[in-house]
């Protein structure tokens, strides 16, 4: 064969394999409203940046007639590319090839690109669209899953790992996304569950649709398994690209700095906050008034909305925000919001992203359901995550900081580097009404007009304790600031803590209250 012929032969082979499961399977994929694996990868990475590996890998199964079947690429595409110039490793399961089922070689391809990502210290993106284990390959398929989970764990906290659920992801397969840092889901396309509706009905007699059991909305709103919810694959890819701009390539780098921009917000911050501490406001408006270009990238928007987490930039540098949301459940900490905040703080700490905490919360959510759901164990995660974090940690107390909530929300006592409080801050063991009822019980009980006496005593308590100055007098608060100074002081805090070098006792690893 001449060289020319060799090249033509290669092109022919490539073209054939790149068709995946063939035209009919591709049509079926489109009929389900889904892009093909290849289209997805191309849509996600920078133009012409995708380079594929293991295109010619074939499966090794010999039983159940598998030896006569050819599965192109063994149902998964792997490769490297860039997103806005940042290098990434990517795999995408190809549902058109045997339903994207995972066999030995399919798993080998995934672990190969995972090993590569870890060695090169670049983010890993996994696109999941698979019917599950390839039954014909038996335990080899289970082995494959296990080897993927093992690598997810090794890479955790070293490189950012993103999972994109663009099809079914059922049974053991769900644990790879669960071990990664961010999970993306798309309405009507993503399905995640351990046991499907069929098994649930046959074993337990409970009827539930696939969508209600493990659809995109369920994971974005109810379970908290998903971090980003999109209505289309295109919107989902935009979210992934945007996230990549906020995070570093690996744990030894900082996120890329962007040109600083002032916030678009032009009013006064204090006008966002109602004067009555019992009246709510949307704390996202405060964040948008502070961050560059008023661009706040929220994470887990639909789940545990009583706490807000997400990324923004201050003077061009990525920071993570954790903020109580008075608009939902008065901004209390409960099981879900504790989980949400703690995991985010640990991500920020692992990847050198400073954490800004905006505090306005009345305490923990009371209730038998919360206590029985383990709010002690879940709430402890927040304390653990803040105490453990060695990135720059800044807190701004906006209004209420009561009781355990004051301690938990990155207080000085947990190692905050900067503690700012607005003059509206109320730092106390509990709200004035509750406190007055206990401290002045005798006076109130003995008074002729109990309500009048209670009102007097509540005022007395407010005067004395419901302010930031008692804490400031002890140095627990570094500075009582005007709301409009918030951005400039945060910029300053981040600037002067750029060289922060804080260490925790050497250990194999801590034992957080999982």
């Amino acid at each position, binding site marked *: 064969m001449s060289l020319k012929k060799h090249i033509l032969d290669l092109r022919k082979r490539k073209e054939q394999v790149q068709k995946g499961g063939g035209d009919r399977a591709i049509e079926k994929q489109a009929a389900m409203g889904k892009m093909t694996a290849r289209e997805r990868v191309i849509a996600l990475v920078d133009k012409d940046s995708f380079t594929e590996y293991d295109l010619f890998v074939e499966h090794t199964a010999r039983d159940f007639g598998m030896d006569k079947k050819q599965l192109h690429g063994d149902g998964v595409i792997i490769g490297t590319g860039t997103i806005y110039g940042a290098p990434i490793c990517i795999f995408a399961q190809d549902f058109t090839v045997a339903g994207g089922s995972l066999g030995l070689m399919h798993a080998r391809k995934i672990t190969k690109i995972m090993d590569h990502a870890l060695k090169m210290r670049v983010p890993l993106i996994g696109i999941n669209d698979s019917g599950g284990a390839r039954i014909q390959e038996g335990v080899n398929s289970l082995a494959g899953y296990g080897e993927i989970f093992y690598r997810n764990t090794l890479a955790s906290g070293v490189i950012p790992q993103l999972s994109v659920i663009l099809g079914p992801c059922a049974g053991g397969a769900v644990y790879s996304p669960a071990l990664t840092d961010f999970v993306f889901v798309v309405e009507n396309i993503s399905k995640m569950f351990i046991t499907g509706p069929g098994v649930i009905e046959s*074993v337990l007699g409970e009827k539930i649709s696939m969508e209600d059991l493990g659809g995109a909305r369920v994971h974005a*709103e109810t379970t908290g398994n998903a971090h980003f919810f999109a209505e289309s694959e295109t919107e989902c890819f935009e979210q992934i690209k945007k996230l990549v701009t906020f995070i570093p390539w690996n744990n030894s780098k900082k996120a890329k700095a962007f040109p600083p921009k002032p916030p678009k917000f032009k009013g006064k911050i204090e006008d966002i906050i109602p004067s009555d501490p019992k009246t*709510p406001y949307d704390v996202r408006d405060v964040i948008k008034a502070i961050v560059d270009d008023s661009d706040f990238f929220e994470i887990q928007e639909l789940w545990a909305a009583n706490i807000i987490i997400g990324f923004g930039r201050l003077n061009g540098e990525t920071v993570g925000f954790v903020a109580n949301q008075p608009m*939902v459940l008065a901004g209390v900490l409960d099981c*879900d919001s504790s989980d949400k905040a703690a995991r985010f703080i640990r991500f920020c700490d692992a990847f050198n992203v400073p954490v800004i905490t905006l505090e306005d919360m009345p305490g923990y959510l009371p209730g038998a359901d919360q206590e029985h759901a383990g709010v002690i164990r879940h709430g402890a995660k927040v304390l653990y995550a803040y105490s453990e974090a060695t990135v720059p940690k800044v807190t701004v107390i906006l209004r209420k900081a009561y009781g355990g909530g004051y301690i938990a929300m990155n207080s000085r006592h947990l190692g905050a580097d900067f503690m700012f409080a607005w003059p509206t801050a109320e730092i106390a063991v509990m709200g004035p*009404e*509750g406190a007055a009822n206990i401290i002045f019980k005798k006076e109130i009980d003995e008074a002729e007009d109990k309500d009048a006496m209670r009102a007097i005593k509540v005022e007395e308590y407010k005067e004395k304790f419901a302010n930031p100055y008692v804490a400031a007098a002890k140095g627990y608060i570094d500075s009582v600031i005007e709301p409009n100074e918030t951005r400039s002081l945060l910029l300053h805090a981040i600037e002067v803590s750029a060289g922060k070098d804080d260490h925790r006792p050497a250990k194999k690893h801590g034992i957080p209250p999982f």
Partner: protein
Amino acid sequence: MSTNKTEGLVDFAILSMKYKTKLTKKFENRVKYTDPNPNHIMSYIPGTICEIFVKEGQKVKEGESLLILEAMKMRNQITMPHTGVVKSIKVATGDRIPKNQLMVEIE
């Protein structure tokens, strides 16, 4: 967004303070705590009633088997928590029942 910012605000009491805020679906759908009644034998797992060994009005000693609830391929013996009388049986053989369903009432 700004139009619905005051929609759905309710009073929400934390200790003795009442805040105006929105509730989450999860909070509104939470299971409210009720005191367990020791005379109500409830299913602790969803499953199928395989066999019933007792009749209404029968005296049963503590630890004796009342029925078998099959779930996850396991035949679970449901036993009498204390010596007493079977007041009423709320299930029949072959019934498929959810979790926390009243199966037998005793006295």
